[in-house]
């Protein structure tokens, strides 16, 4: 069955749970799948091979072409700016969640033990981040009252953009060093492995 | 934001140890005031008082307004004390409600001047029920190194006595307010000149007493007491709130000491105004 496109408003009945999985942009109320956002109704056929023995139902979801603002959830990858640091943690203003921008910055912190996977006790905050750095990180917990907890333990996580004392943007030369092309000064950072 | 730094333990201990021996950290005698400097500016009603490091600027202005219906023949006296972190960090004026000190000081001055009716408000009446003078006293604290109240009271009285308001003549229902250079402005009529004298008390039950505590002493003192007297030896206000309770006898003793202090402060004000 081809996925026809119908525009639906929130609260519109889309189908039954016996027939469909409910996907993003939908919710289920007593056995019925409803749309939860304004958008186009899509149906995605379950891929044959993935469904081993249990027969998989096609997924019903509602899609919005101009994706709106996102919020961080556990596991999502974020892009943020380091606001201030102290020996124990760096506070980060989360600007992007996955590919979607945030309406306003969310507060996050990277605790010193979450900066890298190995030799945690040797990590020095000052040698990992500086205020103003742009970092890529992963949300590991909803954290405390204020901030989300972030981690840069993965290789592809860490500083993606930083400026030197002199104010020139630096280029990573190792996974823990960056260099100012002009002044040749080398500063320590926990760099992110460039994603190709 | 900025929090006041409590004095260190050794400062406390030393201060007390010295005081036991009758010595004050700034070398003063127990019942000595710090050097009092009163400077009157050429503009009427603008006086700066300097009590050691503490500096207070008092400004008196006046305008014509309509009296309160229930008091048609009385002029108004308004007070406004401005205690910002200009004077000292720790005092934060940014938050909406006034700080404790600000309330304390401004209410104290208000009590001293208004409740004791130092100013003759009837004399401020121009046309009963229609026009009266509204005198306004602004206090600006420039530097806080202890004993704001005494400095403020001295500044207020000096400023009020130094102030001149434009002269007025009435014919019938008409009031003519004369320009200052057309007719000499006239001073306010002041009944009496109340002056605050503040005492600091130290030791577990406050038996060590001293006059005019400075900032460090204020922070260390266990109790304080302000007595306000005028030249007629009348008490115009008493204020002792908080701190360890004091023996009644102390109060009497303070009164005696204050009487002498008030006299020479009044003299100082006098000569400052003469100058």
């Amino acid at each position, binding site marked *: 069955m081809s996925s026809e496109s119908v525009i639906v408003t929130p609260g519109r009945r889309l189908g039954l749970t016996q027939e469909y999985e409910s996907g993003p942009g939908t919710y289920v109320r007593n056995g019925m799948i409803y749309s939860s956002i304004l958008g186009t109704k899509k149906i995605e056929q379950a891929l044959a091979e993935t469904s081993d023995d249990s027969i998989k139902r096609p997924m019903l979801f509602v899609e919005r072409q101009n994706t709106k603002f996102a919020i961080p959830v556990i596991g999502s990858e974020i892009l943020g700016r380091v606001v201030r640091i102290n020996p124990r943690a760096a506070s980060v203003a989360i600007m992007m969640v996955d590919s979607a921008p945030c309406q306003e910055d969310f507060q996050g912190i990277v605790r010193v033990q979450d900066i890298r996977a190995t030799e945690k006790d040797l990590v020095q905050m*000052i040698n990992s981040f500086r205020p103003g750095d742009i970092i890529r990180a992963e949300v590991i917990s909803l954290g405390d009252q204020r901030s989300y907890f972030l981690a840069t333990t993965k290789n592809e996580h860490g500083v993606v953009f930083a400026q030197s004392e002199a104010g020139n943007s630096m280029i990573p030369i190792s996974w823990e060093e960056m260099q100012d092309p002009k002044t040749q000064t080398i500063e320590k950072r926990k760099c992110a492995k460039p994603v190709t | 934001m900025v929090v006041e*730094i409590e004095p*260190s333990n*050794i400062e406390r201990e*030393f201060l007390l*140890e010295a005081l036991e*021996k009758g*010595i004050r950290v700034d*070398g003063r005698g127990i019942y000595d005031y710090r050097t009092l400097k009163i400077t009157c500016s050429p503009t009427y009603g603008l006086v700066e008082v300097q009590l050691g490091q503490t500096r207070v600027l008092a400004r008196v202005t006046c305008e014509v307004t309509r009296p309160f219906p229930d008091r048609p023949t009385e002029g108004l006296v308004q007070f406004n004390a401005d205690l910002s972190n200009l004077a000292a960090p720790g005092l934060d004026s940014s938050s909406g409600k006034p700080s404790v000190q600000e309330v304390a000081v401004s209410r104290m001055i208000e009590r001293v001047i208004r409740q004791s009716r130092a100013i003759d408000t009837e004399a401020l009446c121009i046309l009963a029920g229609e026009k009266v003078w509204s005198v306004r006293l602004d206090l600006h604290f420039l530097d806080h190194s202890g004993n704001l109240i005494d400095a403020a009271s001295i500044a207020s009285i000096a400023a009020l006595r130094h102030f001149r308001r434009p002269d007025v003549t009435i014919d019938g229902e008409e009031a003519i307010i004369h320009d200052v250079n057309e007719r000499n402005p006239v001073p306010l009529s002041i009944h009496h000149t109340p002056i605050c004298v503040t005492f600091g008390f130290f030791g577990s039950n406050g038996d060590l007493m001293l006059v005019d505590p400075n900032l460090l002493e204020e922070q260390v003192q266990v109790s304080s007491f302000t007595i306000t007297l005028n030249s007629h030896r009348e008490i115009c206000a008493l204020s002792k709130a908080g701190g360890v309770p004091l023996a009644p006898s102390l109060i009497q003793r303070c009164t005696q000491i204050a009487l002498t202090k008030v006299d020479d402060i009044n003299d100082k004000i006098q000569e400052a105004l003469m100058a």
Partner: protein
Amino acid sequence: MAETKVVLPGDIIDTSLDSDEEESSVLRLGPGVAQIDEQVSAVAAGVLHSDNEKKQWWVVSNKRRYVPAEGEPVVGVVVARHGEGYRVDIGSAQGALLPLLAFEGATKRNKPNLAVGTVVYARVAVANSVMDPEIECYNSHTGKSEGYGELAGGFMFKCSLGLARRLIDSKAPVLNALGSGIPFEVAVGLNGRVWINTEAPATTVLIANAIKNSEFLDAKQCRQMVKELLEKQ
């Protein structure tokens, strides 16, 4: 040294030396002096000092607010205790951190326990623009206390940073003059706090006042002033 030259921020400083081989030499710029483009100019108001041999330039200015610099001795007051260390007020913009173990011979088991309000003599260990300063009560290299640590008894008072710098100099006239007259202990923090201790409060007060007064006096006047004070006593 030549007559004192007062510079204001922005003043271009003539770094041309009487010595000729200039380009080879490297200039050393101290506090209050910076290289802007090709020129050297003052960034703080104060008295310009220079040392031609070492090719050094620096400006001595009398600030009120202390800006911590690594290695400087300071006198601080413990304002709070956290899990990782003490928060110490050293008069800088941010309170400094004093790690629990930054004392001579301190171990996890036995470490000094400082009450809030205690006065400590310490040296600045970490000072950078992005983090709160850190101080330590021992020399982390030697592990020896070198006179740092808690200051018990005595009296502490504040003075201008300029005066503090002059006092730290071993041949500070006031201290010498006083020292010749009366025995006393003194610890000077470059953050403008001086701690002194004598056997009698009276003398302590006297010394404190003497030091405060010496702010604007030259060596000769100092001795005079001290002399009078001592006589009064």
